[in-house]
């Protein structure tokens, strides 16, 4: 984030500088410097071009183009307006020139420097195409100029002699500008300005360039002196002869000489760089590595051929508790106990060639405490192949060792059996629980095929965890499986197979974790068995209860035969019906799956039919209609509700349709969203007589209906006498939690 911000700031800075250089170049080009000035030969240098060219060479063609378009190469639209249409070729060529050199500068930064991609050679290619363009495109464009168009210069026809002359001027100008750029490129202050993070040292080339410029300047002064005292003695002042009014021939000689000196400076700089580049790179590399060593968290230890310490970093001396100076001159043997001394001697004895060795060893701190380390040691040899010492990177692995110990302990003491299987199906590692589980020793397990030691239904199938984990790209497989030990014993387990990859993300095998579930499975079987017994017992109880009620009912029926009194007989019948209503609940419970609740729909249908049969009513005379939802109800509510239904339906058969009247009974059952159970009993019989209050004036049976509904079931009950009777009962079956 911060980096991207910095890059943005640098980018904006480059844009602004490119634009400023472009504007400066625009202004400077209106002040062309005369390089040569003879009667028929004049070469003016547009030094403004130098500024976008520098931008392009240092920062690339994009910034160069910006600088050129912002003014660096645009002054010529005014300067050469006399070329008419010809300017449409002549002027953009300069912008292209900047881009061309910027492109090659970018190329050289990412590719190897070759003679053919050097600054001066790529100029030749550009210049060839530019000249061809001048001879063709430029001449054609000028021919389009309407006459008379600048007759003193071109008119509408450009003679070859004129183009020849202009081309020579362009070549000279271009190479002088390139040379100046090259000079500036070897000048350190300029480099620092454009490349502030420059790592390479350009001091040497700066001195060479400065010297060449100074010599050129001295020659300029010397030549002025000669002109003043010899060739133009008494004709002009020294200052005029040196700068303002330089004679034409002197200007030519001095410029050429200055250029030669600068060229020599550039050549010498290049030779210097080539000679010193190796040293510079080595120095830079050394600094880089020194910095790396001093900042690394690993210890660095350099020994000479006599195995004496000649350099350590701060991390290593901190590791051992010594100061850097205290460690210098000491041998590795001073930092180990006797046990580790053997390892060290063995390892250091191998310093015969440049070999790399990695080994673990415990070092002794200044306070005498040992700590584990890992050594990455490399032997050094000199150019003749003789031993020249060794160095090592030392890592404190105390934490690593502790973690390793903890993992090992966890692995070995885990309650689950675990094994690591390699790609070749061989068991590489296993924990103690696994050895106990398979009843084999470690020697018999490690190295054996996984399917020989602990086989199962997945072995030799496509579902083998080793195959499946590789194919499906899943990380884990979990399944319940019975494994078979080599002695044939079957062990039910929960297997969790996990893919195992090395630090390079290469598949190396799988880890299998086995949870022995023999105990759980036995317990589950026992629970199932117990449940079956209990279910059978409960069913038997319901059956017995129902049977007992049937016996009671039978006894009552028989007893009722002993009386001739109709009231007594009727009373016995009512009681019998009530017993049957309760008995039916137990019959339904016996059939019910969870033995705790019954389906009210079935119950109401059966009960109503039973009562109808008990009163010997023909279904043709009194029709029963049902609209019953599937509503389940607990035994606690079912029995009292059955008694209510029994009473109300019995009353209908007894009283609602006197004199064998025909009629209809409609029973509706539904459950509301809030679980309220609604029961409606409607008949189209004679209803209550006027002013009859069922609560006060009703029989004991009716009183019990209100009492059961309101007091026992905590529900609501109401009745309307309109074209028969309409009973509305609302109850909530939430008074007791389900029993099972």
């Amino acid at each position, binding site marked *: 984030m911060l980096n991207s911000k910095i890059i943005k700031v640098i980018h904006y800075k480059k844009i602004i500088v490119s634009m400023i250089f472009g504007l400066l170049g625009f202004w400077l080009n209106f002040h062309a410097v005369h390089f040569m000035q003879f009667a028929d030969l004049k070469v003016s240098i547009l030094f403004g071009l130098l500024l976008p060219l520098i931008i392009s060479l240092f920062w690339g063609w994009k910034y160069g183009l910006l600088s050129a378009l912002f003014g660096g190469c645009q002054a010529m639209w005014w300067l050469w307006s006399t070329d008419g249409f010809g300017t449409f070729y002549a002027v953009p060529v300069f912008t292209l020139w900047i881009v061309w050199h910027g492109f090659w500068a970018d190329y050289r930064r990412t590719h190897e420097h070759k003679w053919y991609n050097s600054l001066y050679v790529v100029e030749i290619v550009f210049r060839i195409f530019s000249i061809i363009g001048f001879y063709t495109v430029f001449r054609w464009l000028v021919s389009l100029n309407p006459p008379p168009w600048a007759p003193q210069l071109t008119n509408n026809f450009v003679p070859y002699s004129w183009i020849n002359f202009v081309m020579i001027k362009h070549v000279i100008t271009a190479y002088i500008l390139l040379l100046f750029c090259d000079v500036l490129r070897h000048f350190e202050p300029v480099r620092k300005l454009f490349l502030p993070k420059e790592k390479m040292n350009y001091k040497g080339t700066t001195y060479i360039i400065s010297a060449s410029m100074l010599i050129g300047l001295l020659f300029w002064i010397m030549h002025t002196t000669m002109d003043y005292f010899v060739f133009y003695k008494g004709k002009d002042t020294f200052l005029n002869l040196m700068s303002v009014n330089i004679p034409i021939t002197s200007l030519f000689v001095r410029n050429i000489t200055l250029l030669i000196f600068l060229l020599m400076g550039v050549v010498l700089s290049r030779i210097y760089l080539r000679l010193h580049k190796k040293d510079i790179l080595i120095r830079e590399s050394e600094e880089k590595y020194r910095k790396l060593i001093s900042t690394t968290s690993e210890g660095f230890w350099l020994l000479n051929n006599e195995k004496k310490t000649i350099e350590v970093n701060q991390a290593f001396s901190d590791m051992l508790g010594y100061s850097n100076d205290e460690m210098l001159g000491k041998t590795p043997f001073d930092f180990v106990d006797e046990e580790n001394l053997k390892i060290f001697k063995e390892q250091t004895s191998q310093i015969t060639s440049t070999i790399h060795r990695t080994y673990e060893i415990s070092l002794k701190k200044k306070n005498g405490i040992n700590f584990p380390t890992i050594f990455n040691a490399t032997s050094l040899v000199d150019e003749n192949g003789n031993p020249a010492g060794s160095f090592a990177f030392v890592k404190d692995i105390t934490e690593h060792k502790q973690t390793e110990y903890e993992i090992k302990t966890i692995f070995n003491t885990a309650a689950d059996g675990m094994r690591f299987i390699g790609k070749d199906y061989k068991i590489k590692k296993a924990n103690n629980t696994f050895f106990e589980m398979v009843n084999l020793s470690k020697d018999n397990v490690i190295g054996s095929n996984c399917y020989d030691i602990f086989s199962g239904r997945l072995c030799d199938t496509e579902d083998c965890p080793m195959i499946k984990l590789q194919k499906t790209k899943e990380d884990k497989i979990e399944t319940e499986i019975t494994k078979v030990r080599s002695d044939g014993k079957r062990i039910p387990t929960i297997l969790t197979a996990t893919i195992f990859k090395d630090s390079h993300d290469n598949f190396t095998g799988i880890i299998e974790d086995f949870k022995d579930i023999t105990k759980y499975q036995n317990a589950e079987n026992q629970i199932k068995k117990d449940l079956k017994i209990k279910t059978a017992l409960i069913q038997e109880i319901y059956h017995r209860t129902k*049977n007992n009620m049937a016996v009671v009912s039978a006894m009552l029926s028989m007893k009722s035969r002993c009386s001739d009194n109709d009231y007594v007989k009727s009373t016995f019948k009512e009681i019998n019906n009530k017993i049957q209503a309760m008995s039916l609940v137990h019959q339904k419970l016996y059939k019910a799956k969870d033995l705790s609740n019954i389906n009210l729909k079935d119950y109401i249908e059966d009960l109503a039919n039973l009562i109808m*049969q008990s009163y010997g009513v023909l279904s043709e005379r009194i029709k029963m209609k049902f609209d019953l939802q599937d509503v389940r109800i607990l035994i606690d509510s079912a029995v009292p509700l059955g008694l209510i239904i029994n009473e109300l339906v019995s009353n209908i058969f007894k009283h609602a349709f006197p004199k064998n009247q025909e009629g209809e009974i409609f029973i509706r059952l539904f459950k509301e969203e809030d679980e309220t159970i609604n029961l409606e009993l409607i008949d189209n019989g004679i209803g209550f007589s006027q002013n009859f209050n069922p609560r006060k004036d009703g029989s004991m049976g009716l009183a019990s209906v209100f009492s059961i509904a309101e007091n026992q079931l905590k529900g609501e009950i109401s009745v309307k006498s309109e074209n028969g009777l309409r009973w509305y009962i609302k109850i909530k079956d939430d008074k007791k939690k389900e029993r099972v």
Partner: protein
Amino acid sequence: MNEKKKILIVEDEVMLSAWLKIQLEDEGFLVCGCITTGGEAIEFVKNTKPDVILMDINLVGEIDGIEAAEKITEKLNIPIIFMTGYVESEIYKRAQKTKPVAYLTKPVEIWNLKPIFESLFS
């Protein structure tokens, strides 16, 4: 029906068979026996051949109602009506093998039996 039809009741609940007997006799049938075990029923029918047997399935003793019915129907062609509190499909399937006249769920009342007898003895 000039001659009273003989009915054998095989039921281990004596009170239930007694009540059934009263109801049947009220309706004009002759209850020739009330027996509580399957074994006794098999022996009984050897001497007295009833016109129909009301057989409870869940009986005390080693032989249940279905087994007793199987043994009886092997030798004699006596219609059997099963009475049971059980409604499991397994028991029903077993009972069906003896080709019973009816399979009634308890409580069995006279109005359950009357239409069956009517069609049986008509």
